[in-house]
C-alpha cells in the first residue's frame, strides 16, 4: 500500500510515465486525426513530458512542491502540438495543486490531479469533448471519488487509469471525426499511457514494449505482398519497375523486422521509409496511367480527396514570445483570426503560441510587435497528412481479412477469373496434380484471413478439402463445388461484407442452379451403355454420363448443350481449354448463339488441360 507521495516518488512516477509513453509513441502517432492530422501527437507529448522529467531530475530542491513546479514550468517550454500544450497545462495545474507541500496523501494527490485537468481545460480556447481534456477530467474526477474512502495511492491510480481507458474508448462516440477515422483520440490515448506508466512502476511491470512496432512493420510487409500479388495477377505487363521497387521495399522492411529486438523503436523510422517508397510507386503508376491497378489508384485518390476536404489551414505554427506584460488572452484572440486551434499559454514574460494557419508570416510579424520571437516551428501539415493517410491505407489494405476464399483451379484462365470474382488464393493449375491435404492446409495457413471458405471445384478434391478444414486452427468451411463453373456460381453469391456462415449459405444456394458438362477426347477404347467409344473419339460428359460422342469437339459441344438446356435456363457459358484455338472457340460461340437466340451465351478462356470445353448452363 502506498500511503503518500513525495518529491522523489513523483520524479520516479513521471519518469515511468515518460518511458511508457515513449514506448507507445508510434501507437499514439498513428491515432492522430483530430483536430487536424498532425500525425505526431505521441512524439509531441513524449517530448513535452521528457523535458519535465529531465528538469525535475536536475533540481536541487527535492521537495514535492519544487519538483512539481519545475516539471510544470519546463514542460511549457518544451511542449509541442495541441496535445503537448494541453499536457503541459495539466502538469502546471498539478503543480499548483501540490504547491507548498512536501508530501501528500491519496486525497490531496487526487485533488492535484483534478486541478491539473481543470487547468488543462482553461488553457484551451474552445475545449472540445472527446479529447485528452475529457479523458483527463473524467479520470481525475474518478480519482477524487475513490480517494474519499481509499488511502492507497496505487488503488486510486488504478481506478483513475481504468476510468481514463473507458472514457478514451468512448471518444469516437463524442467526436464524429474520430468515428469516421476509426480511431480513439490520440491525445487521450497519450494521457492513458501516462497514467499507465506510473501504475506499471508501482506494479513492477516492464516499461517498454516492442510488439506494436513489430506488428506495424509486419503489416507493411504484408501490404506490399498483397499489392504484388495484385499486380502479378492482373493483366499488366509494363510494370517491371513497380515490381522491382515493391520487392526491394519488402526486403528492406523484412530486414528491419529481423533486427527489431536490437533496434526497438528506431524501426518506426524504417516503416516511414517504406511508406515513402510506396508514395514513389504511386507516382510512377499515376504517371504511366496504369488504370488497371484499381486498388492502388483508389488509395491515391482517396488520400487526395480526404486531404482536400479536411485541411483548411496548412501550417502548424509554433513559437515563443519573450516580452513584458504579455496579454495571453489577447494574443490568442489575435492568432485565432489567422486560423484555428489557437492556443497561447505561459506567463506575462513568456508566451508559448500555437496556431494552425495559412499565413505563418503574418502571424510571425504580429508576434514580433510584442517582443522577441523565438523557437519558431512551422510544419506543413499537408505533407504530414498525406504520409499519415498513406500509412492508414496501407494498414487497411493488410488488415487481416475476416473471410478469405481459396479456390482450386485447373488453368490460368480459370485462375484469373476466380481471382477477379473474389478468390484470395488459388490452388493448383494446369500442370499440377490435385492438391493434397498438406497443400490445402498450407494455403489455408498462408491466406491472410481469420476464416476461410474452400471451393474445391472438383468432387475428387472435396474430401481432402474437408480434412484440411478439420485440421486447421482457423475456422474453415468447405462449399462442396464439384466443378469450376459451380465455384464461380458460388462466388457470384459471395458477399465480402457478410460472415462465413452467411456466405456458406449464400454460396450453397447457388450450386443447385448450375449444370456443368465437359467435352474431351477419349483416351482409350471404352464401352458405355449404348456407346462404343474408340480411342481418339470426342465425348460429351454430363451428370457423370457420356451423353454424346462424335469426331469434332465443336459438334460434340453443340450436341451436349442440347442435352443440357431445359426450359427456364437463361445462360450458356463456354470455357475453352488449352488445346482449343480462340478462333475455333468463337466459331462455336456463334453457332450456339444462333441455336439459342433467347439465351445469353458467353465464352471465356479457361485454359484447362484434357477438356476442350467445359460448359455450364443455368
Amino acid at each position, binding site marked *: 500500500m502506498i500511503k503518500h507521495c513525495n518529491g522523489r516518488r513523483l520524479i520516479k512516477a513521471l519518469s515511468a510515465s515518460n518511458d511508457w509513453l515513449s514506448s507507445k509513441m508510434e501507437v499514439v502517432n498513428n491515432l492522430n486525426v483530430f483536430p487536424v492530422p498532425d500525425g505526431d501527437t505521441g512524439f509531441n507529448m513524449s517530448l513535452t513530458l521528457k523535458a519535465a522529467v529531465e528538469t525535475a531530475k536536475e533540481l536541487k530542491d527535492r521537495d514535492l512542491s519544487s519538483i512539481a513546479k519545475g516539471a510544470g514550468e519546463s514542460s511549457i517550454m518544451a511542449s509541442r502540438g495541441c496535445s503537448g500544450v494541453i499536457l503541459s497545462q495539466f502538469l502546471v495545474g498539478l503543480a499548483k495543486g501540490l504547491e507548498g507541500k512536501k508530501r501528500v496523501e491519496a486525497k490531496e494527490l487526487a485533488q492535484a490531479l483534478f486541478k491539473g485537468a481543470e487547468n488543462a481545460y482553461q488553457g484551451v480556447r474552445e475545449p472540445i469533448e472527446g479529447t485528452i481534456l475529457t479523458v483527463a477530467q473524467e479520470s481525475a474526477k474518478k480519482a477524487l471519488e475513490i480517494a474519499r474512502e481509499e488511502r492507497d495511492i496505487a488503488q486510486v491510480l488504478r481506478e483513475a487509469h481504468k476510468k481514463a481507458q473507458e472514457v478514451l474508448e468512448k471518444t469516437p462516440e463524442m467526436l464524429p471525426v474520430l468515428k*469516421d477515422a476509426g480511431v480513439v483520440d490520440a491525445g487521450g490515448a497519450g494521457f492513458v499511457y501516462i497514467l499507465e506508466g506510473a501504475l506499471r512502476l508501482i506494479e513492477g511491470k516492464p516499461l517498454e514494449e516492442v510488439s506494436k512496432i513489430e506488428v506495424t512493420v509486419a503489416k507493411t510487409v504484408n501490404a506490399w505482398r498483397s499489392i504484388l500479388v495484385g499486380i502479378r495477377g492482373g493483366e499488366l505487363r509494363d510494370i517491371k519497375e513497380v515490381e522491382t521497387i515493391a520487392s526491394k521495399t519488402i526486403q528492406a522492411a523484412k530486414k528491419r523486422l529481423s533486427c527489431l529486438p536490437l533496434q526497438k523503436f528506431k524501426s518506426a523510422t524504417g516503416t516511414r521509409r517504406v511508406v515513402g517508397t510506396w508514395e514513389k510507386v504511386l507516382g510512377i503508376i499515376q504517371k504511366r496511367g496504369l488504370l488497371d491497378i*484499381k486498388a492502388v489508384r*483508389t488509395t491515391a485518390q482517396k488520400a487526395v*480527396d480526404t486531404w482536400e476536404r479536411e485541411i483548411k489551414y496548412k501550417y502548424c505554427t509554433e513559437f515563443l514570445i519573450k516580452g513584458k506584460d504579455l496579454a495571453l488572452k489577447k494574443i490568442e484572440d489575435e492568432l485565432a483570426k489567422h486560423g484555428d486551434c489557437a492556443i497561447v499559454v505561459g506567463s506575462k514574460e513568456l508566451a508559448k503560441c500555437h496556431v494552425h494557419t495559412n499565413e505563418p508570416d503574418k502571424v510571425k510579424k504580429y508576434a514580433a510587435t510584442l517582443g522577441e520571437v523565438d523557437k519558431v516551428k512551422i510544419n506543413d501539415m499537408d505533407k504530414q497528412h498525406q504520409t499519415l493517410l498513406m500509412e492508414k491505407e496501407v494498414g487497411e489494405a493488410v488488415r487481416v481479412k475476416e473471410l478469405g476464399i481459396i479456390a482450386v483451379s485447373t488453368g490460368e484462365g480459370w485462375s*484469373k*477469373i476466380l481471382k*477477379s*470474382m*473474389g478468390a484470395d488464393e488459388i490452388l493448383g493449375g494446369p500442370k499440377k496434380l490435385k492438391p493434397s491435404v498438406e497443400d490445402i492446409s498450407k494455403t489455408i495457413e498462408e491466406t491472410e484471413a481469420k476464416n476461410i471458405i474452400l471451393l474445391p471445384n472438383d468432387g475428387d478434391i472435396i474430401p481432402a478439402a474437408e480434412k484440411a478444414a478439420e485440421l486447421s486452427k482457423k475456422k474453415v468451411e468447405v462449399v462442396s463445388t464439384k466443378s469450376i463453373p459451380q465455384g*464461380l456460381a458460388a462466388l*457470384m*453469391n*459471395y*458477399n*465480402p*461484407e457478410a460472415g462465413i456462415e452467411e456466405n456458406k449459405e*449464400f454460396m450453397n444456394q447457388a450450386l443447385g442452379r448450375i449444370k456443368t458438362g465437359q467435352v474431351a477426347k477419349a483416351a482409350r477404347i471404352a464401352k458405355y451403355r449404348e456407346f462404343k467409344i474408340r480411342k481418339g473419339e470426342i465425348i460429351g460428359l454430363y451428370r457423370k454420363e457420356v451423353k454424346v460422342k462424335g469426331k469434332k469437339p465443336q459438334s460434340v459441344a453443340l450436341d451436349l448443350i442440347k442435352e443440357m438446356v431445359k426450359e427456364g435456363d*437463361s*445462360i450458356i*457459358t463456354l470455357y475453352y481449354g488449352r488445346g482449343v484455338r480462340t478462333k475455333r472457340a468463337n466459331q462455336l460461340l456463334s453457332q450456339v448463339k444462333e441455336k439459342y437466340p433467347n439465351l*445469353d451465351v*458467353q465464352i*471465356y478462356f479457361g485454359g484447362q488441360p484434357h477438356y476442350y470445353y467445359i460448359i455450364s448452363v*443455368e
Partner: protein
Amino acid sequence: MAKVAIVTCCPNALPDNLLKELEITMLFHPVTLEGKEYRVGETISPEDFLTEVKASKGFPKTAAMNVERFAEVYRKLMAEGKSIVNITIAGGIFSQPTVDAAREAANKIEGADVTVVNTMLIAHPMGLAVLEAARAAREGKSKDEVAKIAQEVASRSALIMALPNLEYLHRGGRIGKARALLGSLMKVIPIAILRYGTQTVEPLGRGRNIQQANQKMIETIKADMEKSRAKRIKALIADVGDNPEATEALKEALKKNIDCEEIIIGKMRCEIVHLGPGGWGIGYYLVK
C-alpha cells in the same frame, strides 16, 4: 390545397405524373460532364443525358445544391402561405453539403417555417419517403406529422441497385464497400445495397444476367421483411432509361414473390450519374 408544401431534390426516382399530381417542388442538382453543366430533367432530358454519358469518355459528376436555390424556393412557397418540409438526400458522409444548404437556407430567411428531413438515403427509397409525405400533406396533416412520416418511411427503406457498369459508381465517388465487386473478368451485374443510416454502399453479390440480378434483389428484400417482420412492401423501381426490360422483369418477379401494396415504375434523372448505363434499382419500404 395542402398547407404543407413538400420540397425535395431530383434524385428521387419518382415519375413525373406523381410529382405533378402531388405538387412536389423538385430542385435539380447540377451535373457536370466533360466541363459542361446540366440539370438532368430540366435543361436536358434524362434520355439525352444518358446518350451524352455513353458517348463521352469521361465520367459525370453531381454537385451539391446551394443555399440560394433552396432559399428561392422557400420564399416562393412562403409567399403562398405554406409550411415547408424539405426532404433531402443522405447527409453525413454521403452528401452533407446539400443537407447543410437546406438548413442554412431556412435559417437565413426570417420566419421561415421549414423542417428539413435528412433521409440518409438517396434515389428510389427517398422517392418513397417523399411520396408518403406528400400524400400525408394532401390529407391535411401538420408539418410535424408530415416530416415524421418522411423520416419514418426512410428509416424503414433501402435501395438495391444493379450496376452493369459499376465504374460509374466508383468514379462518382460513391462506391463505398461495394468496391469489392469491381474488377470481375466475367460479364456480370454487380448488385449493391444502400441501407438507411449506414452511409455506405455495401455489396450484395452479382448476377450473370437480369434474371439472376432480380432474383438476388428479391431474396434480399425477403430476408429484410423476415428480419423486421414486415408483411408487405411498397416499391419504387426504375432503370436509367435504357433497360426497361430489367424493370419490367423486376416488377413481374415482385408480383410473383412478394406481397406489394404498391409498385411504382419511376424515372431516373441525375441518378444516372452513379448508376451508369444499363443500371436499375428498387427502393422498398417495409410497411409496418
